């Protein structure tokens, strides 16, 4: 949502590996959430222009608590929860040389003295290839998409001085895929309504949680996700009260109460397909073994065919 308004200067993980000399992890703890990330793509990896690996890079962690990632960082800035927007605002001002009246070096911004943010702003400007990687610590704190909007603007403005990029630390397998496909098919990444036969986009109105919260849904088709584990309790209770179909390769917290469960072959194991990595790079995955179940695509295609036949019959008055 933030990208739509202000854009985001971004790069691939390959560039991070080969070029980045300053890495900032903001609200992210990849040591625990993305285990191979540091060794393959970022802090620890050795690349074409970063032959020294970890020694040749500066690592900064901005988080609300010490984490395994922060223990291995050169600079750790422990901030007050919910102050990310204010921090990004001050960093923008420091980077652009905008005066901050009434603040001294000891003034606390997000629980950290201004002098520390000044040091970070200088570090960012002096780096030759900086990357800020932000996680749900930033996206789920007060302000949500506004935090990302402010950070994206900061990243764009840093490009006046050096090369600087931002990457979202997306979690779960292929969570980026639905956004990518939705974008190239409809022009919008999420919260798209097809009620009228054409796409209509409005997060807050057509996002899953909001629609279920307002009880605007009378049936649900759940594909490769687990609302029973991830959505708030009252929303799960409502989902349980309406007809639900789950297309899912595994047993999870949704399948026991879904009215219909259609087992499918897991993508990348029993079916081929395309995964989108967190830096938006598509990766083709092959089928490794045969499964007795069809793939998600086959199931969805046959459902669509049946629904079309029923609708055509209804239109013909049969």
């Amino acid at each position, binding site marked *: 949502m933030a990208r739509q308004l202000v854009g985001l200067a971004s790069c691939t993980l390959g560039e991070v590996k080969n070029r980045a000399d300053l890495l900032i992890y903001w609200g992210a703890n990849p040591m625990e959430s993305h285990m191979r990330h540091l060794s393959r793509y970022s802090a620890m990896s050795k690349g074409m222009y970063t032959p020294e690996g970890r020694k040749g890079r500066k690592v900064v962690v901005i988080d609300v608590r010490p984490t395994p990632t922060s223990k291995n960082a050169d600079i750790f800035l422990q901030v007050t929860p919910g102050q990310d927007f204010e921090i990004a*605002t001050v960093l*923008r*001002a420091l980077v652009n040389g905008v005066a*901050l009246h009434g603040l001294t070096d000891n003034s606390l911004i997000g629980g950290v003295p201004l002098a520390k943010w000044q040091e970070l702003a200088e570090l960012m400007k002096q780096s030759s290839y900086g990357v800020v990687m932000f996680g749900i610590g930033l996206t789920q704190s007060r302000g949500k998409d506004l935090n990302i909007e*402010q950070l994206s603007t900061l990243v764009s403005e840093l490009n006046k001085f050096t090369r600087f990029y931002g990457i979202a630390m997306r979690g779960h397998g292929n969570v980026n895929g639905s956004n990518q496909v939705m974008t190239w098919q409809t022009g919008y990444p999420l919260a798209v309504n097809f009620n009228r036969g054409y796409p209509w*986009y409005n997060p807050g*109105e057509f996002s899953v949680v909001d629609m279920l919260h307002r009880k605007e849904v009378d049936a649900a088709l759940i594909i490769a996700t687990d609302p029973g584990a991830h959505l708030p309790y009252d929303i799960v209770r409502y989902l349980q009260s309406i007809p639900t179909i789950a297309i899912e390769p595994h047993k999870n917290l949704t399948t026991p109460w879904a009215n219909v469960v259609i087992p499918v072959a897991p993508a990348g194991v029993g079916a081929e397909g395309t995964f989108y990595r967190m830096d938006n790079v598509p990766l083709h995955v092959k089928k490794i073994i045969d499964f007795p179940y069809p793939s998600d695509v086959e199931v969805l295609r046959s459902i669509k065919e049946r629904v079309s036949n029923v609708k055509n019959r209804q239109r013909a008055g049969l």
Partner: protein
Amino acid sequence: MCKQITLILKTEPSLPVEAENITPDNLSSMDATEINNLLLWYGNEQRKLSEFFTVEISEVEEVDEFEEGTPLCHTRIIIKGDLIRFKRLGEGMSSGELLIEGSVGFHTGALMKGGTLIVRGNAGDWLGAQMEGGKIIVQGSAGHFIGSGYRGNPQGMRGGMILINGDAGQMVGSRMRRGVIAINGNCGDAPGYRMLAGTLLIGGVPGIRVGANMKRGTIILLKPGELLLPTFYYNCTYRCPVWGLLYRELKDQGFNLQCSNKDIYFKRYSGDGNEGGKGEILTCHSH
């Protein structure tokens, strides 16, 4: 003579109804049969208006309250019932009057160009979003994104007036370009976010990040809440000459402000420094 169309809700629908067809412009030339057959979106199918409402049409004589003796000639729609499930009522209307005697759902008066829209209860999110003219009065509270722009649109409200007697949600007047929004109660975070111009008055306590990234425009806070962002700078304390005009205009519209017109001083802050610092936030200093 004014054409008065009264729509009485039969039962509250279980799914949302998109009712952008219900505007004085659309209904002014229709007879009762045409209005009954008007199509509204119910979920993913279209249904006739008569499935939701009972329609009554009458003609009333009214005189313009500002120009004595001048007879009024416009269409007034009165909708009775709890319209929480009804979205886009009065969307794009350019004349006449729409009176909602109850609460109403999302996008009410969005893209409005003229006329008057009155909500006796509460209003949902995106009230008057991207409106260009006219007047919206909500006697209860309203949701988020009042007078703001839709996602992807760099400009929000471009003209007109929105008056909320109760509280408001987050991001009121986000990216607004022109016009006036006045809220008598409290409001959520980031009012006037990325504001481009126009006037936003908040009578109660605002949330945090007031006027963040605003380029120009005026935000008036009668009860300043938490500290402003560090990219706003104190300029002076003064008697704002515009305040008297705005106060009188709001009083004329029946808006009950919790302060007086006289002996009121404002602290003026300019910002957002990150965006050029040409916007202003006026916080009430004494009254």
